[in-house]
């Protein structure tokens, strides 16, 4: 039987087991929309903005571990999606984006709604394709999913000219496997490196495990737990890694980096052995490279060889899938004798006593930290939490103790305001049985409020926890610290009434202006199983995120809450530890 290119495309997506396509139509993809409508396996989610489609697919992917799929039209369709694609790229999220292109004969003619989609997306995708032959559609889709989901995952764009979706052929069956001589992502860590690693670990006296998003995306949570518990080493996790190891566990020091805990950063500074697992030494983690972990040897496990020795030279590089590497390493270390690190722990516990996440409540104001703590309490720490970008994101990361991977969904690499709401929608579709909360603030949420409409149409009940501080708070904080309180462009007058906004989209809104109303409001919101509830909480506009390492500072130079002075390196003689 003859099929047109659009039908072949949809059949291919079905063969890949796709459940949802997040998309928005346009001239170049009308045949594809038509083919999508004619079947029932894949549900199309019609978003209100293509950036929302990409973020929703991204949230779906992060929550489920399966690739997210996006469909956009040519020209403005794909350019609108670029922010979402770049967001997924920076955080290594598997995603396949199908974009329509103008008909082949018009390519290069500045045709209506033509942009060079592969050119524009080239630097923010793992790979992209322009399909030139209808016979290549199925194979290209197969390759796209293969590339997006294997090795270090990432987004793949498949650009299809309209005429290729209209042409007809008798298709071959969908390829079962792909063979690409130029792409062999599976690598097994060398035994020699494992032995060397074990030796360094067994000899270290002040070790620290520094784990990142690779442990979440690479499904290495179990192996990481086993490794950490077997070694008894302290563990600190990056913003992207939270939840791979339970945040409440006594070996966990919390997050590290610019807004990491005092104990995490001090322990990094004092460590003699840093075991980096699926983390990439981002500048928000390392601060000044000159002063980064001055006494440490580095073990670096990552699936992407280009991450190793990019920012920090690894003493022992291990390229491999993190879960497999840890499994082998765990076997190697089993029943071995470790150094006595009790002195190291007592030092760390002293740092812990600084209680760097403590904050003072003020009568009459709601502290944003309290909001996150209340959310944690009300959801018993079991919700999937997405976030936007700003202070609220940092407070969410600091005060919601994630104890499972894939519960914390945020744009860490690109830091995209507007990510939270559509990502929550995608996460809810992926995990309909779970409570999903979107932690946001009045600045970020306004970048994507249109998706409230999509959320009604597709019944994705999400709880929006709006930490409404009336400011682009993170910007305001930097201006307070580094620009002598000149609050240029960080205050928004004329905010909408978020309750009415939510209601106008058919959702429920709850306004919280007093701390006493906070918990009841949240309980009420989560009781509403079928409804999206917008909880607009007026929080302290002056609160800042602490601890803070000013950009380019060292781990031992932290600003702590309630102190005017920088806490600089304490007097501890690490060699005595």
């Amino acid at each position, binding site marked *: 039987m003859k099929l047109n290119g659009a039908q072949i495309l949809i059949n291919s997506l079905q063969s890949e087991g796709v459940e949802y396509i997040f998309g928005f139509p346009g001239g170049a993809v009308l045949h594809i929309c038509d083919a999508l409508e004619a079947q029932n396996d894949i549900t199309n989610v019609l978003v209100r903005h293509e950036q929302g489609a990409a973020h929703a697919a991204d949230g779906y992917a992060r929550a489920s571990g399966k690739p997210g799929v996006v469909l956009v039209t040519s020209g403005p369709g794909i350019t609108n999606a670029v922010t979402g694609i770049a967001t997924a790229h920076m955080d290594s999220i598997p995603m396949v984006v199908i974009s329509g292109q103008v008909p082949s004969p018009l390519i290069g003619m500045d045709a209506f709604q033509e942009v060079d989609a592969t050119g524009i997306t*080239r*630097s923010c995708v793992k*790979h992209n394709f322009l399909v030139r032959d209808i016979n290549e559609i199925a194979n290209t889709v197969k390759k796209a999913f293969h590339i997006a989901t294997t090795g270090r995952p990432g987004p793949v764009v498949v650009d299809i000219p309209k005429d290729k979706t209209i042409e007809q052929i008798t298709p071959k069956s969908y390829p079962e496997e792909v063979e*690409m*001589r*130029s792409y062999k992502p599976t690598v097994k860590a060398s035994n020699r490196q494992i032995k060397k690693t074990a030796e360094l670990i067994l000899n270290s006296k002040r070790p620290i495990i520094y784990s990142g998003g690779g442990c979440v995306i690479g499904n290495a949570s179990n192996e990481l737990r086993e490794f950490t518990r077997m070694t008894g080493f302290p563990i600190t996790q990056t913003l992207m890694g939270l939840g791979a190891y339970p945040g409440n566990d006594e070996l966990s020091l919390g997050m590290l980096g610019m807004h990491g805990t005092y104990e995490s950063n001090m322990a990094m500074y004092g460590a003699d052995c840093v075991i980096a697992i699926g983390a990439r030494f981002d500048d928000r983690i390392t601060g000044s490279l000159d002063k980064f972990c001055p006494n440490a040897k580095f073990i670096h496990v990552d699936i*992407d*060889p*280009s991450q190793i*020795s990019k920012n920090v030279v690894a003493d022992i590089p291990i390229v491999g899938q993190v879960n497999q590497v840890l499994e082998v390493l765990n076997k190697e270390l089993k029943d071995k004798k470790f150094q006595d690190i009790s002195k190291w722990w007592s030092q760390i516990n002293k740092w812990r006593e600084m209680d760097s996440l403590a904050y003072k409540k003020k009568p009459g104001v709601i502290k944003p930290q309290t909001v996150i703590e209340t959310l944690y309490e009300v959801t018993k720490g079991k919700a999937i939490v997405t976030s936007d970008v700003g202070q609220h994101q940092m407070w969410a990361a600091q005060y919601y103790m994630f104890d499972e991977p894939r519960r914390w969904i945020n744009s860490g690499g690109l830091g995209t305001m507007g990510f939270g709401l559509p990502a929550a929608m995608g996460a809810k579709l992926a995990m309909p049985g779970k409570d999903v909360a979107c932690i946001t603030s009045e600045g970020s949420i306004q970048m994507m409020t249109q998706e409230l409409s999509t959320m009604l149409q597709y019944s994705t009940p999400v709880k929006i926890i709006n930490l409404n501080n009336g400011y682009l708070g993170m910007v305001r904080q930097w201006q307070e610290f580094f620009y002598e309180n000149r609050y240029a462009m960080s205050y928004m007058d004329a905010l909408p009434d978020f309750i009415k906004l939510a209601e106008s989209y058919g959702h429920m809104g709850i306004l919280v202006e007093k701390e006493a109303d906070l918990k009841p409001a949240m309980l009420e919101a989560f009781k509403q199983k079928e409804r999206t509830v917008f909880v607009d909480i007026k929080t302290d506009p002056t609160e800042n995120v602490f601890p803070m390492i000013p950009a380019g500072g060292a781990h031992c130079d932290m600003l702590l809450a309630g102190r005017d002075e920088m806490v600089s390196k304490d007097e501890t003689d690490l060699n005595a530890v």
Partner: protein
Amino acid sequence: MRHIISVLLENETGALSRVSGLFSQRGFNIESLTVAETSDSSLSRMTIFSTGNDRVIEQIVKQLNKLIEVVKVSDLTSQDHVERELMLVKVCPTNKDELEIKQLVDIFSCKIVDVTEKTYTIEISGKTKKINAFLNALNSAIIMEVSRTGVTGISRGKKAILK
């Protein structure tokens, strides 16, 4: 340090822009880049002449390897290799320069490949140093235009990029 990096990649449209885009995106240097099909028409071979310290070059090699269409990357500088560059230079000598040009062509053992009433086109190939030396030796006032291929190279002996 100067490095000559050979890249074997799928002979597909867009592959070249991925490589050049990578260099500009990450701020890597390109002194020259040459590319053409190999004996296997499905593969292109690219030679990139770049400069950077060891860590930069390590990143360049790793980032190139990461490109999906790249089959093999090899840093020729770290092995025994042969390298060549070809230059065409068009000059318009006055009568008194003519003898000097013929002498230079002899000394540098290059060829005059085209002659018109007023101009000579000279072809020279060799190491970059030799080409630069030839260019310096020519009276710059008579040079009309220069076209260089950039460096290409190949390893010596039994080793080949795919073996």
